[in-house]
């Protein structure tokens, strides 16, 4: 009678199978819907597997804004990720090595997570309106970088602190500059952590909705806003919505598999080391 068993008995197997079905079937249903013909997604009994199974609604979904949405999301997400990872890891290195104001950081991070979106959205909206930057890439890139930065600093600080100081000290003794020690010794050594952090930034910016909804409008329409917009019309184009939603989920699902090892740490802001 062991609590942590090796292997799976039949009861646990069925329990996991049923739970997995519950958590996966909505996603599978969405993918199946994306291949359905008109009339197939609104029938009773519901059609499970489309008889036509064409990519027609992918094409149409991309044509009515999906492609533009994915393009906008890519531009915003990649720029944001680059900015926040570069600035954030510089700051994290300083905090980890020279203890600049590092002790209050936990509270900063937590308080930003507490902030209701409207509390920061409203001033930002008025700020960008004043600068005539509403509905531009710059507004969203800047906003997402601001939101991501504390998170990047916090995660990267943890990774730098795990690195033994002696390696950089040896480089300094050998005549390397501090900047050199950072770029040539510390940075390459934390690169797995750096990649994980970058992927988290990517995930956040790619999935974000409310800031994109308010700060974008007609010229800048990230894919989340685009999908939500397709629901508002007279006739809801379910096949198109499902198709674009499926496309928008592909990068994230790939990330989930790459990130596995770092997920817990990233999601709990380092409070629990996975």
């Amino acid at each position, binding site marked *: 009678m062991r609590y942590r068993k*090796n292997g799976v008995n039949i009861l646990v197997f069925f329990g996991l199978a049923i739970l*997995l079905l519950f*958590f996966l079937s909505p*996603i599978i249903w969405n993918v199946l819907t994306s291949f359905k013909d008109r009339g197939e997604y609104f029938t009773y009994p519901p059609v499970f597997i489309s008889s036509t199974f064409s990519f027609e609604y992918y094409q149409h979904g991309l044509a009515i804004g999906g492609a533009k949405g994915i393009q906008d999301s890519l531009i915003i997400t990649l720029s944001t990720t680059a900015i926040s990872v570069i600035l954030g890891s510089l700051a994290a290195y300083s905090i980890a090595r020279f203890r600049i104001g590092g002790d209050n950081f936990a509270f900063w991070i937590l308080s*930003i997570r*507490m902030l209701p979106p409207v509390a920061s959205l409203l001033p930002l909206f008025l700020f960008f309106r004043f600068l005539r930057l509403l509905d531009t890439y710059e507004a969203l890139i800047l906003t997402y970088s601001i939101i991501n930065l504390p998170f990047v600093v916090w995660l990267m600080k943890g990774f730098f602190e795990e690195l033994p100081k002696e390696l950089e000290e040896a480089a300094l003794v050998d005549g390397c500059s501090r900047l050199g020690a950072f770029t040539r010794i510390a940075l390459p050594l934390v690169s797995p952590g750096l990649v994980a952090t970058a992927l988290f930034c990517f995930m956040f910016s790619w999935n974000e*909705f409310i800031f994109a909804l308010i700060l974008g409008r007609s010229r800048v329409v990230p894919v989340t806003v685009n999908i939500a917009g397709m629901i508002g019309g007279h006739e809801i184009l379910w096949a198109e919505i499902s198709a674009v939603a499926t496309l928008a989920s592909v990068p994230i699902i790939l990330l989930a598999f790459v990130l596995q090892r770092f997920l817990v740490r990233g999601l709990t802001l380092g409070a629990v080391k996975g």
Partner: protein
Amino acid sequence: MSMKGKRERYLPLFFVLPTVIIILIISIFPLIYSFWLSLCEWEIGIGADRVFVGLRNYARLLTDSRFLNSLMNTGRVLFFGVGAQFALGLGVALLLNRSFRGKNLVSTLFLLPMMVSPVVVGCIWRIIYHYRYGPLNYMLNMAGLSSVNWLGSTDMAIYSIILADIWEWTPFMMIVLLAGLQAIPDELYEAARVDGANRWQIFTYMLVPLLRPVMIIVILIRIMDTFKIFDLVFLITFGGPGQASETVSFYNYLTGFRHFSMGYASSMAYFQLAIIVIIANIFLRVWRRREEA
């Protein structure tokens, strides 16, 4: 001091500076500015000027039945949603807390609901909940039950959102609790078994106390995020039917960006922030006490 020495000394400062400036912009400027706004009346929709009204917005909140309704709904999501996520997440974590082939794959598959965008989650559930053509009612009918008006009934709508929220966020509870469980060394299980503890005793006297810090953190994070629940409400019901399924952050959005009452929206955000800060302080106090004990 040499030129190089001077540069070296200030380098850490240059590293931190950009981030500090940006963080100041996000946390200090909006906080002060929106607090100031919460004391004003400012209807930018009709082009009115900003008027200082003191605490009147806060007084209005307490008598606004629509706000109180949204607060109740947020409370329902907290109680039923976060509660179920915790129970279910702990269950799945306990099931997964053993070694078997393909475990990593299975855990990652469990995580997909929280990885895909909340907007996608909202769309998916809106199809599933469709009264006549949705797969959920179809399955109920197959089981001999009558269809449920998931989105059209004022009593049901908020619970439909809660069910989607449970689906989306149980994986988060699961993965964090699983990490906590796996940090418990095998020797402790061995020792408990040698002492003759049964499964239930191992769970209540060993696992629960050891997991408590992780449990507190993960529930706190979910509570803070639940106050921000917006995407699912926006996509699944848009607060409807009527105002039946509005949550605080959704009503807050409507006030600020549909009615353009900037002052009132700010006071609502501040009210929300105050509640969150109080809850977080209680949780962190309990957490610290445990750490010290």
